């Protein structure tokens, strides 16, 4: 019944991306912090330039492992990956439905960006700290976008499609299931570890699942699907 996860399967795809390779532009940060791209007032363009100079040494690391023989149970709202049962709840179960395999992923912007943010805060430069913290969030999501594109291309050659990314802690999926997710990755993968409180360290890290199959869908994700009114991403600005 599915693949045993007693022995962790080696990661099938792992990448390291430099800040330059990530292709993050000032407009992305302006948009993230609430300004129309190209319209941030002084001194923000200069501050953003300063922050980007600090970020040139940064890189992101991430990758995924593919598990075949996945079972999605819409009645019980759960997903079986090998011997591990995930209580994915209604939204994610529906979105992963018809997946025949899943890619378990993790990606991080690393420790340096958090260290820089703390340093700025310590010196009382709260705006710099906020900007670099925002860059950290953009970096890890952009890195994961690129990794997801690589997965999509790899699956296309076998006539397979992929879904959006779904993670414990969102869409009603209990964050404590992160622990089971991390059992599906090699220990200390990309230097990411999970604390007792399910926080990933480095903080600017993401993890989750992407469904794979011939009949799965990738669609525009909107907050309207989810009833978590307190989610900080519901009204990002």
């Amino acid at each position, binding site marked *: 019944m599915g693949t045993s996860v007693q022995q962790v399967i080696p990661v099938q795809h792992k990448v390291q991306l430099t800040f330059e390779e990530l292709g993050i532009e000032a407009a992305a940060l302006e948009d993230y912090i609430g300004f129309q791209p190209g319209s941030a007032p002084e001194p923000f363009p200069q501050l953003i330039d300063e922050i980007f100079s600090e970020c040139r040494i940064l890189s992101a690391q991430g990758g995924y492992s593919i598990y075949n023989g996945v079972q999605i149970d819409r009645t019980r709202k759960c997903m079986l990956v090998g011997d591990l049962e995930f209580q994915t709840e209604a939204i994610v179960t529906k979105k992963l439905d018809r997946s025949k395999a899943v890619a378990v992923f993790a990606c991080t912007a690393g420790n340096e960006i958090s260290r820089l943010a703390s340093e700025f805060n310590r010196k009382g430069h709260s705006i710099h700290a906020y900007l670099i913290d925002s860059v950290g969030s953009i970096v890890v999501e952009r890195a994961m976008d690129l990794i997801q594109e690589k997965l999509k291309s790899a699956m296309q050659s076998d006539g397979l499609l992929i879904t959006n990314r779904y993670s414990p802690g969102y869409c009603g999926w209990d964050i404590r299931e992160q622990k089971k997710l991390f059992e599906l990755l090699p220990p200390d993968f990309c230097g990411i570890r999970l604390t007792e409180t399910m*926080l990933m360290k480095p903080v600017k890290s993401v993890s989750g699942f992407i469904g794979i199959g011939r009949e799965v869908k990738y669609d525009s994700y909107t907050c309207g699907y989810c009833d978590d009114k307190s989610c900080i991403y519901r009204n990002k600005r």
Partner: protein
Amino acid sequence: MINDHILERIAHCVEFGKSDLKSPYPPDLKGQEGAQELTRAALDMGIDPGLILSAGLVKGMERIGAKFRANQVFVPHVLMSAKAMTAAMEHLKPLFLSGEVKRRGTFVIGTVAGDLHDIGKNIVAMMVEGGGWEVLNLGVDVRDGQFMDAVNSFPGCIIGLSALLTTTMVSMEKTTRAIKEINPTTRVLIGGAPVTEEFCESIGADFYTPYPQDAVDYINRLVPL
């Protein structure tokens, strides 16, 4: 009248994040004096420093806080306002130390044990300081003991707890009960994405809000300037 005019200009500068003459932000106040210069001028005019604080600086922060609550402005705007407030406060700090100007009290804030998120917590800290409070920001991953030490070191202080994960908000109950055991009259405010009004009531905390300005309004009502 002249006093009211300069106090309103100070409030305007704080509201719109105009720190000083050199600052190019906001664009429509470029080349004009900012909160820093106007506060100095107000003191030189003999205006009561407590009035400068309440009718100038705090007023400005209240306005930006209300706009932030209404989603009319975003985090960068609040940070610029806080920067303007900080620039002006440099002139008032010696007066706090001498006792000529009194702050409302001490507000101790931290992200609870096991949690490292701090952006929201820092915004609350800035806005509370803008409300006329001395703020002790304990940082992130703060153990119960640190909050309890603060309660003992700063009699009458108010505590703010922040958590961004369902797994860490449970620490709030333990911390709240520990604080209330030392001093049942200590007010405890809680906030963060997974926190709710129901949770606040269930753990015996005193106030919950998702909006920083509501937290400021609540504690300001406890201690008027």
